[in-house]
């Protein structure tokens, strides 16, 4: 009988760069920046690290394939290093790899580092997908972008719940406005400006019905974690953060090719959440999860994710958004660091950036953004499009 990962692994150090349009920094600068903070926070030396995982998505655009960009940059002394990639769940995938390695007993201390240098492609938005998604995709699929693929979920959500475009957009605007409020307080965030609901509503359309402020920042950045066996964690620090669940779910093709999918939720997130809560022993996510960092690549993604993560009943997330449940001072704050929306979204780093915020909140070190009485935090990544994706749900606690 599989035992799961709960309380077998602890995070003893984390680091995260400033996210943003880092014209000053290449991928190796970003790696060093995150690693230095992480190492210092853990209070260990580089030679203590026994294995490493690198997460990066658009290798074609910047650092190249394999784990070499990590080992060369950090001059890792011939230790095993692995590069992982699973679209936007890449950073969480790197952490998963390091945690499982430690939980297996193969290593005592492992590094997970995610990095992405997106702002070297010469245009706005994510780098063009057509070269990255396989041989036949270009012949089969529309020449879609991420905003368009997620906009289709908004169209569907509005239709399913009889929301007029303005009503639906207003709910989504509240989601974005809340994250901007939090991001403005975060010195490491990419976008640090409060915006009103009206500003979000009247922003230029990117992919109907989503406008500019329904979309997250496209950023450069890196984040890292050092993990160890739970029974060793207290040797390194008094307040280690324990892994309660590491779940990932990958589309089966149903969402794209089978009419049973309703298009107003994410099937993988739903599955990963059920598995993660089971692994962590969470019975009622709405009551027990103190805070969450979810994959708000677009406002609609955050809205449906709160339903997929069982924070809100299906079709009711809008009510909770309007009631302020997910605000920093609400009952269940989401995106206390600004989220992808404002902290930014360097793909390979995002999962680890989310864990960085949960880690700091659990330790009570989140400064003006500190949430009261944090016991259990969820991070959620969604890689790909609603029709075909990878979702991760990770849970950490004290």
């Amino acid at each position, binding site marked *: 009988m599989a035992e799961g990962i709960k309380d077998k692994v602890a995070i003893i150090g984390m680091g995260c760069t400033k996210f943003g349009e880092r014209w000053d920094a290449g991928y190796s600068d970003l790696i060093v920046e995150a690693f230095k903070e992480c190492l210092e926070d853990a209070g260990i030396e580089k030679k203590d690290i026994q294995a490493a995982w690198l997460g990066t998505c658009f290798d074609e655009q910047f650092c190249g394939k394999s784990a070499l960009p990590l080992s060369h940059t950090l001059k890792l002394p011939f230790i095993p290093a692995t590069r992982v990639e699973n679209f936007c769940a890449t950073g969480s995938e790197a952490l998963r790899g390091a945690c499982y390695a430690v939980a297996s007993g193969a290593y005592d201390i492992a590094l997970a580092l995610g990095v992405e240098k997106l702002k070297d492609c010469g245009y706005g938005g994510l780098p*063009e997908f057509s*070269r990255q998604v396989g041989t036949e995709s270009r012949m089969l699929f529309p020449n*879609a972008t991420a905003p368009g693929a997620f906009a*289709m979920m908004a169209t*569907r959500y509005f239709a399913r719940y009889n929301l007029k475009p303005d009503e639906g957009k207003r709910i989504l605007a509240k989601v974005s406005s809340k994250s901007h409020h939090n991001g403005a307080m975060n010195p490491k965030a990419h976008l640090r400006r409060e915006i009103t609901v009206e500003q979000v509503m009247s922003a230029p359309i990117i*992919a*109907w019905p989503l406008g500019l402020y329904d979309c997250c920042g496209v950023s450069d950045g890196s984040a890292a974690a050092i993990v160890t066996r739970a029974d060793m964690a207290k040797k390194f620090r008094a307040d280690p953060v324990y892994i309660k669940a590491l779940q990932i779910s990958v589309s089966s093709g149903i969402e794209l*090719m089978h*009419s049973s999918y309703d298009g107003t939720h994410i099937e993988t997130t739903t599955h990963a959440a059920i598995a993660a809560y089971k692994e962590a022993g969470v019975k009622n996510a709405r009551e027990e999860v103190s805070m969450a960092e979810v994959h708000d690549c677009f406002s609609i993604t955050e809205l449906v994710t709160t339903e997929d993560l069982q924070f809100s009943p299906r079709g009711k997330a809008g009510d909770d958004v309007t009631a302020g449940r997910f605000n920093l001072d609400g009952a269940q704050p989401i995106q206390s660091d600004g989220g992808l929306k404002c902290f930014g979204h360097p793909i390979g780093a995002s999962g680890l950036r989310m864990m960085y915020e949960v880690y700091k909140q659990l330790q009570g070190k989140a400064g003006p953004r500190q949430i009261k009485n944090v016991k259990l935090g969820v991070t959620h990544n969604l890689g790909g499009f609603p029709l075909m994706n990878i979702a991760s749900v990770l849970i950490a606690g004290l």
Partner: protein
Amino acid sequence: MVGITSYGGYIPWYRMERMTAYKAMGWLNPAAILPGERSIANYDEDSVTMAVAAARDCLKGIDKKKKIDGLYIATTTSPYRQREGAGIIGTALSLQPSIRTADFTDSTKAGTGAILSAYDAIKAGSAKNILVCASDLRKELAGGYQEQLYGDSAAALLLGDTDVIASIEGSYSISYDFSDSWRADFDEFERAWEDRWRRDEGYEKQLTESIAGLLTKYKLNIKDFAKIVIACHFERAGVAIATKLGADPSRVQDSMMRTMGDSGAGYPLVLLVAALEEAKPGDKILVVSYGNGSDALFLQVTDQIEKVRDNKGIKKWLARKKMLDNYDKYLAFREEIPMDKGFRGEESSSTQISALWRGRKSFLGLWGSRCKKCGTPIYPIQRVCVNPDCGAIDEMEDYCFADRKGTLFTYTADLLAYSINPPAIYGVLDFEGGGRFWFDIADCAPESLKVGMPMEMTFRIKYVEHGRGVSTYSWKAAPVME
């Protein structure tokens, strides 16, 4: 009896008032103006995709596997100099591979040439049924007279020896090396000699000669014809040719110069389809093409004509239209102006021709699979059933989605994605009878879309890879034509 057994037409969605072009470029050639409007193929269309649209209209309700044993396309604007257009069309139509195919080209009378060749093959017993498509999409120099004259459209005729709706009773052909308009191998645009010379020495003399030749050969009087189809883009000259031979001008088929324009090799066939739509049993029809000579054809309508009356033909396509009021956009569609595509627009991977070949049934024919265990239809072709309650492996039969309608599950209009005609509109379709996939959406305004609205499939250019000279085709969804 050998003749036409079905017909189909196609006119693109966009039309442009000729005055729109004139307002933009009239300063260059103040005399280059004609009344009315012309048809404009969308950016994702070419002579092959338009021929497919007309062929699908023509083959509605016809068992393609049993019936079609030949496919000809006539066009002067094949997207390839070496890659058979008929081969692409045959794959898109899912015709069986054991058929005779040929491209007829290099003259605007290639369409009637293809009809005559098909007729001869059937008459000789070499084939039972041959599908003849004719289509042209000509690029014209900005501000020139041809830009005013020409339009884009296609027609398709099925020829056979049973259930004939209009028998081919005779023909008379003439051929001259009369080079009044031409494109050299290296030419992108057509050149033409003075239009008065084209009209008087070309159209008038040669069409008169072919018609008179036909009348003499079959001992007919032009008054015997209920409909006279003359592919002449000089509106008045076309009528005058017939009336000088004694015809009642009311019998001369509308040249469609006010509504569509001269579509080259497709032109006489498009006008013929328009005539057949109105024809009555017993009508004699005269069809005359033009281009380095002329073919005159003599057709006789039978009482089977009523059987194909629900095809879209020309009338229904003509009624479905969107005015293009932006001349620059037309130039962009034809890639006649250097356009800032942005780096995103320039990014592209190269097409793997071998992968395209392997996947041709799915990509070009819109074939998927249907699970023999649970009956679930799936696009594209799969080996493992997607039904979560089934999951059978290698229990599939081929299943074609091309002629299935569907409903729009969801959609967006994407301004970030590169498109020649932004926003890029795409959405998810649920097919009647099952099956779901994600497609581009063609020929619509985004604000006209609604979740749940009926859609149908249309064969289009997916992208053109200029670096390697590859045109890739795929199926897009479009609102069901009213």
